[in-house]
C-alpha cells in the first residue's frame, strides 16, 4: 500500500509538471497579450508593465520563475526594528505567498501564484482564498443533490425495469440531460425569485472569512435560501447521468453468477440487493464521481453567471480572454491537482467496493 502511494504521488507530480508546461506553452502561443487594449498603450507604458510582471524575460526564464515561485519554499532574514520587533516588507502583489510567517528574524515563504493582470488589486492567491470556497460549497451541495436524486432513481429504475417507475425515472434523467442550466436557471430565477419572491434571484449566502477556509460560517436558512436554486439547477444535470449509470450497472450486476448464488443459498432479496448487487454496481458511478467532483468544486461559469455567484468558474473563462497568464496557470493547475487527487480516491474506493481489487 505504501509503495503504491509513493508511485502514485510521483506520477501525480509528473502529470502536474506536464500539464503546467503545456498550459504555459499554449497560453503564450495564442496571439495577443494581457495588455493589448482597444486603446493601444504607448510603448513606454507597455515596457513598464512587462518589466513589473517579468514578461520581458525569455519564456523559459519566465516558466522557471513561475515554478520556482510556486514550488520552492524559501527563507529570508528580517531586519530588526529599533523598537525591538522586525521590519516586515511592504505588502506587494507581485510578492504574495500563500504561506508566509516568521519565527524571530527568519521568515518562511512558500507558494506565490502571482498577481492578476486584469484585477490590479488582487493576486491568484486572493482568488483561491475568496472564490474557491464559494465554488466548493456550491459544488458539494449540487454533488450531494445529484447523488441523493440520481442513485435512488437509478436503483428504482433497475429493480422495477420496464415498469412505470423505470420510465418515470429515465424521463427525469433525459429531462436533466437535455435541459441545461442555461435554460433551467433563468426559469427557476423567474418563477421563485421574480414572480413568487420566495428566494433571492441571485447572490450567495456566505462570505469570507470561511470556517477552515472552505465552509460557510452561517450554515442556516439564510445560507440555504441562496444555495437551493443553483444547487438544484447544477445538480440535476449530474443526477441524470448518475441515474442512468446506476441503472445500467445494476441491471448488469443482477445477472451475475454470484447474485444467483446468493439467491440460491436463500438470502433475503433485500440483502442480495443491498449487500451484493448495489455495492458492486456503484463502481461506474464512483468512476465518474472523481472528475465530477473536480469539475463541480472548481466552479461552473454558466451557473455562476445566471445566479450571480462569486465563485471560481468565471476565472477559467475570463482569464483566457484577458490573457491573464498567472490566473490561467493557477486555475488550470488547481483543476489538475483536484482531478488527480480525486482519481486516487476513486481508486481507493474500488478496493472497498470490489473485494477482488487490491493495491499491493
Amino acid at each position, binding site marked *: 500500500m505504501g509503495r503504491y502511494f509513493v508511485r502514485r504521488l510521483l506520477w501525480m507530480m509528473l502529470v502536474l509538471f506536464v500539464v503546467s508546461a503545456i498550459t504555459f506553452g499554449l497560453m503564450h502561443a495564442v496571439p495577443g497579450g494581457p495588455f493589448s487594449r482597444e486603446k493601444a498603450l504607448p510603448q513606454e507604458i507597455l515596457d513598464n508593465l512587462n518589466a513589473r510582471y517579468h514578461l520581458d524575460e525569455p519564456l523559459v526564464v519566465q516558466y522557471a520563475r513561475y515554478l520556482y515561485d510556486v514550488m520552492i519554499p524559501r527563507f529570508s532574514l528580517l531586519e530588526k526594528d529599533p523598537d525591538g520587533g522586525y521590519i516586515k516588507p511592504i505588502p506587494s502583489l507581485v510578492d504574495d505567498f500563500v504561506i508566509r510567517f516568521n519565527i524571530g528574524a527568519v521568515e518562511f515563504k512558500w507558494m506565490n501564484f502571482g498577481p492578476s493582470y486584469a484585477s*490590479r488589486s488582487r493576486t491568484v492567491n486572493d482568488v483561491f482564498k475568496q472564490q474557491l470556497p464559494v465554488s466548493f460549497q456550491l459544488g458539494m451541495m449540487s454533488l450531494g443533490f445529484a447523488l441523493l436524486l440520481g442513485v435512488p432513481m437509478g436503483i428504482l429504475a433497475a429493480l422495477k425495469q420496464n415498469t412505470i417507475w423505470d420510465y418515470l425515472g429515465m424521463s427525469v434523467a433525459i429531462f436533466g440531460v437535455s435541459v441545461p442550466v442555461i435554460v433551467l436557471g433563468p426559469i427557476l430565477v423567474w418563477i421563485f425569485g421574480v414572480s413568487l419572491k420566495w428566494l433571492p434571484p441571485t447572490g450567495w449566502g456566505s462570505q469570507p472569512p470561511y470556517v477552515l477556509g472552505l465552509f460557510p460560517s452561517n450554515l442556516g436558512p439564510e445560507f440555504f*435560501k441562496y444555495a437551493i436554486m443553483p444547487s438544484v439547477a447544477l445538480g440535476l444535470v449530474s443526477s441524470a447521468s448518475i441515474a442512468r449509470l446506476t441503472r445500467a450497472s445494476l441491471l448488469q450486476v443482477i445477472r451475475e453468477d454470484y447474485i444467483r448464488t446468493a439467491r440460491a443459498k436463500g438470502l433475503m432479496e433485500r440483502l442480495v440487493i443491498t449487500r451484493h448487487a448495489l455495492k458492486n454496481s456503484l463502481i461506474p458511478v464512483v468512476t465518474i464521481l472523481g472528475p465530477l467532483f473536480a469539475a463541480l468544486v472548481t466552479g461552473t461559469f454558466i451557473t455562476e453567471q445566471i445566479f450571480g455567484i462569486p465563485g471560481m468558474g468565471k476565472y477559467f473563462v475570463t482569464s483566457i480572454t484577458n490573457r491573464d497568464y498567472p490566473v490561467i496557470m493557477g486555475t488550470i493547475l488547481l483543476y489538475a491537482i483536484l482531478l488527480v487527487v480525486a482519481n486516487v480516491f476513486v481508486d481507493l474506493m474500488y478496493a472497498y467496493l470490489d473485494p477482488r481489487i487490491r493495491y499491493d
Partner: protein
Amino acid sequence: MRSKGLAVIGLLVAASMILAACGTATPETVIQTVVVEGTPMVVEVTAAAPAGPKMVTGSFGPGDVPTIDPGLSTDTSSTTIVNATTIGLSYLYESDATLHPGAAQSWDISEDGLVYTFKLFDNIPWVKWDGSQVVKVQTCPDEAGATKDRMLTAYDFEYGIKRALSPELASDYAYVLGFAIKGANEYNAGEATADEVGVKAIDDTTLEVTFLEDAAYNINIIGLWTAHAVPKWLIEGDDCTEARGDRWTEPGFFQGYGPFTLKEWVHDSYITIVKNPFWPGTPDIPMPKLDEVKHLMLDEVAEFAEYEAGNVDFSHVPLADIERVKADPVLSAEYRSAPNLCTYYYGFNTKAPFVDDVRVRKALSMAIDRQGLIDNVLKAGQEPAQWFSRPGLVAAPTMADYPDLGIKYDAAGAKALIDEYLAEKGITAADVDITLMFNTSSGHQKIAEAIQQMWKTNLGLDIKVTNQEWKVFLETIRDPVATPQIYRLGWCVDYPDANNFIREVFIEGGSANIKGGGGISWGAGDPEYDAWAQLLLDAAKERDPQKRTDMYAQAEEVLVDTYAAIAPIYWYTSSGVTKPYVTRSYAVTGHNEFVTWDVSK
C-alpha cells in the same frame, strides 16, 4: 435509514424556504464611542432618519471591480468608486461634462498658460470606515501624545500624481498625464527623476503644476482620477501607520477624502460606499443625500431579474428585454436612454486594395443607413454618428449647430461614387474583394451583417464578413500586413474634450494610427496630414470656444469625408431603468456619481 435521512433533509429545505419568506429586520443605528489608532475620539453621530438609512443598489456587471486605486483605475466600475471616495483638483459634473472646482477652490494660470497654481480647500479631512462608522484619520501622536486630524494637502496630490507616473507602479493611464504634464512621460519612461516632473507642492494648500502646452484641456486632465491624491503614510508607512503597499485599497485599510468612502468590498460579490459625514461640502460638491450606495457584480440578465424582484434600484436593460420594457406600462415609465460619450466606428486600412481609393471608402460610409440600423438592430435609442467626436464633449460639434457636418446616409450618392470608381478601373462589382472584420460577439455580428446587407443593396458589393477573438483581433488590426480592409472599433471618453477623441486617436502614434501598424496609414510628411495635425494642435490651444469648435468641425470633415479614414456608425447611449422613488442624475461620462442622488420611499 436512508428514507429517514431524506425526510430530514426535506424538512430542512422546507424550513429554510419558510424562514426565507419572512421579512428581514431593518438595521438599527448604534451610537458608539470609538478609539482610533490609540486615541479616543468624539464622533458626531447624526440621528438616523425615521425611515432608516437612505440606500440605493445597482450593479457593475459580472466580475470583480478591478481596482479602486486612483493611479491604476481604467474602467467604469473602478472610476465610479474612485471618483466617489477621492476627488481631483478640478471636478467634472458627470451629468453634463462641465468643469468645476474640486479639491482646489481656485487656480491661477501664468502669462504663457503653462503654469497653473492651485489653491486647495484646507478643510477636507482624510477619513476611513472603522468597521462600524466613518471616522477621521489621525496624525501620529506628538510628544504630548496628542493627535490631529489628517487634512488633505497639496503634498498628497504631489505624491498621488508622481506615484501614478512612477515606472514601478506601471499604471496604464500614466500616458494620459504624460500627454499634458511637463516631465511626466520622461519620468514614466525612466529617463528622468520624479523631481523633474512639473508638479510641486509649495505649501499645504498650494500646488504648482507645469504643463507642456497652453491647452484648454489641461484643467480637465489634472482633474482625472489618475491625478487624485493618495495617502502616502498608508501606502509606505510612517511612525504610527503600518505600510499596506499594494494592499492599501482593501476594506479595513482604505482611506479617502471624497463625499463617500469605502465601507465594504466583498470581492466578486459587492462593493458598498458610505456617506462621509466629515465631507465639508464645497460650493460645487455638496454633502451627499444618500447614506449608502451598494453595487452588486451581476451579469445584465441577473441584474434585471433583481430589479424586477425589487432588490436593485437602478439597472441596465438586456437587449432581449428592451421591447418588453418599452411596451410595459410600468417599466416604460422607468426606462430612459441617456447619451454616453462613446463612438462606434469602422476603420479603413487605407493602404489595402480597393479601400486605398477615397471614393470607395466614402461610398461604403455613405451607404450605411445608420438610423435604420438603430431602429431595427440596436433598438436602444443610439444616435446616428456623422463624425467621430461624440457631441457632448467640450468643443465637439453638435447636431444642432452642425446638422450637415460629416457623412450622412446617401444611397444614390454612394452608388454614383462606386460606379465612377469601377468605370475608371475598368472592373465590375464582382471583382471588388473587401473583407470586414470584427471581434467575436453576437452584438457586433448583427451590426456587421446588417451593414453587409446595406452594402449589397445600395452598392451591389459583396463584402465578406469575418471575426476573430478579441485579443487576436487587436493584434491583427495593428499588424501592418494583416490589417483587414475594414475593421470595427470604438472609443470612450477619458476626459470630456474633443482632444481626447479625434486628436489622441488619429494623430500619428495615436491609438488607431500606430507607427508602422495597420489601420490608418496617414502620417507626417504627407502635406494634407501635416495641415490636419497642425489644425488639431491649434484647436487644443484655442481659447475662444466657438472658434475651437469650428476648428474641430473642420478636422472632422477631413477625417470622415474628405479623407474618409473611418466610417462613424453610431454614438452610444446608456439605457436603463430606475425605480420611481430614486431621484438621480444621468452620467454622460460613463460612471455615475451619487452626490446629487436621493431616495424617497
